[in-house]
């Protein structure tokens, strides 16, 4: 059991409104990810759910009970931090068992839960070590273990992979996904990395400047963005935006095209441009063309392709895949 419900949650520091009214319902067992650019309030929102920040107004409900006035340890949550935040003076075992000890659980229960978590995260041989003697990836696993041991209603992750190097990040991402499948608990995860968001989430919450822009499954956000912000934020390389008139659309202000939905041809395209830069990634090739009034347009092709910089090409765009936005940036169909 672990549902979460935010009702018109707001937060302001002095005169600055950081969270401007957020409503969200999370079902039991869901993996929810908050994404957004830095400063959008996603970490603040997570800390409000954890009880580390007060809510200025609105209610936070966990499992149907309002927890606004409860301290973090009574909310039935566990949190994993970006900087690991392990207790430097305790061993791995000590780190994992402290929360249960504070809650006054019997030693047998603590030992058993620590053993289970250690096996799950392959930490068994490190139980007697101190955090200083562990590598970054191991430390983050201990931090996850510390959360698992508490058997919380809600797991909260605050950019847990940001301090790891690229290879380790992929591994730990897989581990977190496996953990979610195994435990089936509700997880709320904050990241600024859209790859993490797309690969892990059941539903993604896109935040911008303290408000929710859109909530939906990764594919919903990709195929059906509600506005220009979400369209630009999800997908890499970024969606191209051009004035609608330039691609022959009259009922919208701006048109968005994903780089993977554009192909290069010798003629017959709505736009044409000169190649200014090419990125060869092996599996895919990203080409950037300078298209006069339309500006720089990115095209993503799969596989290896050779083009000359400076050569001219027509851009053929799949009509069905053009997103239309009005002057306010809202999607029009």
């Amino acid at each position, binding site marked *: 059991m672990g549902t979460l419900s935010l009702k018109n949650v707001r937060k302001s520091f002095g005169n600055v409104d950081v969270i401007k009214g957020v409503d969200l319902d999370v079902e039991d067992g869901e993996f929810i990810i908050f994404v957004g650019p830095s400063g959008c309030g996603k970490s603040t929102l997570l800390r409000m759910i*954890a009880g580390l920040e007060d809510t200025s107004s609105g209610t936070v409900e966990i499992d149907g009970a309002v927890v606004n006035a409860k301290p973090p*340890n009574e909310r039935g949550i566990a949190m994993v931090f970006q900087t690991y935040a392990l207790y430097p003076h305790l061993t791995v075992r000590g780190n994992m068992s402290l929360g249960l000890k504070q809650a006054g659980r019997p030693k047998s229960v603590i030992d058993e839960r620590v053993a289970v978590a250690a096996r799950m995260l392959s930490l068994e041989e490190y139980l007697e070590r101190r955090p200083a003697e562990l590598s970054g990836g191991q430390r983050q696993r201990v931090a996850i273990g510390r959360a698992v041991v508490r058997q919380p209603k809600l797991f909260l992750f605050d950019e847990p992979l940001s301090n790891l190097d690229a290879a380790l990040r992929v591994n730990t991402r897989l581990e977190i996904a496996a953990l979610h499948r195994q435990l089936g608990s509700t997880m709320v995860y904050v990241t600024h990395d859209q790859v993490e968001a797309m690969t892990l989430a059941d539903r993604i919450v896109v935040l911008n400047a303290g408000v929710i822009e859109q909530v939906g499954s990764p594919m919903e956000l990709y195929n059906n963005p509600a506005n220009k912000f979400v369209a630009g934020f999800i997908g890499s390389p970024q969606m191209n935006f051009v004035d609608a008139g330039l691609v022959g659309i009259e009922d919208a202000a701006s048109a968005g095209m994903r780089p993977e939905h554009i192909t290069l041809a010798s003629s017959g395209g709505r736009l044409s441009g000169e190649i200014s830069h090419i990125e060869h990634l092996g599996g895919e090739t990203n080409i950037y063309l300078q298209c006069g009034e339309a500006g720089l347009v990115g095209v993503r092709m799969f596989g290896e392709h050779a083009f000359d910089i400076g050569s001219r090409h027509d851009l053929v765009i799949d009509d069905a895949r053009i997103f239309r936005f009005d002057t306010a940036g809202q999607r029009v169909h």
Partner: protein
Amino acid sequence: MSQARHSITRSVAAHAILITYTLIALFPVFVIVINSFKARKAIFRSPLELPNAETFSLIGYETALKQGDFLLYFQNSLIVTVVSLALVLLFGAMAAFALAEYRFRGNLLMGLYLALGIMIPIRLGTVAILQLMVATGLVNTLTALILVYTAQGLPLAIFILSEFMRGISDDLKNAGRIDGLSEYRIFARLVLPLVRPAMATVAVFTMIPIWNDLWFPLILAPAEHTKTITLGSQVFIGQFVTNWNAVLAALSLAILPVLVLYLIFSRQLIRGITAGAVK
């Protein structure tokens, strides 16, 4: 290893400078200690000579320990220093934690107010302090000295410690909160161990002025039973005659405890001073 960074001439030069400085700094102490073991005439005839069979004498130490209650002075100094130090560290660390950790109205003003004492010497308020002590009946008690020294040491302690505490990751404290630790336990178990080097730095900077102070003992607690070692040594310095043997012996003895305390803190101190400069 690169040649440029390990040039022999450079390290010789560096060591020469450091050794010269060490000699200059230690010389007065050295002269005090050797002369404290010499007879009066030898002190004046050849002050820089080491004591030999002819000039060696313990008369200074005998006088110092016999005249006046030297052990008591020692005990007074030690009580005042250790208790003040403990209070400064305890209250300083707690105030610094509050300033660094909690957002409350007037946080910045409170920080400035508490740091004001660094810039304004406490001695300016001597008359008022004396009146206060007379009014509360604390004149000629060690409590008076402890209170004054605690007040004297707090500003610097709060200033240094709050800077260090701001540097401790919020995540760690939040992890403690989620695990159900009380604020006091977060302070004592998570934060204090991490600022230990800073605490040692503060301890040394606080301790030495207290131990060496003559002003407040002279004004607030000049009675025989509350004299500190610095004040006690003054009995040998007269307007017309000064018992140099006894003064030097008393000073040599007075160096010892502070040296011991310094050695205890020094390992931490070096880490504290270099923290931030080298990672």
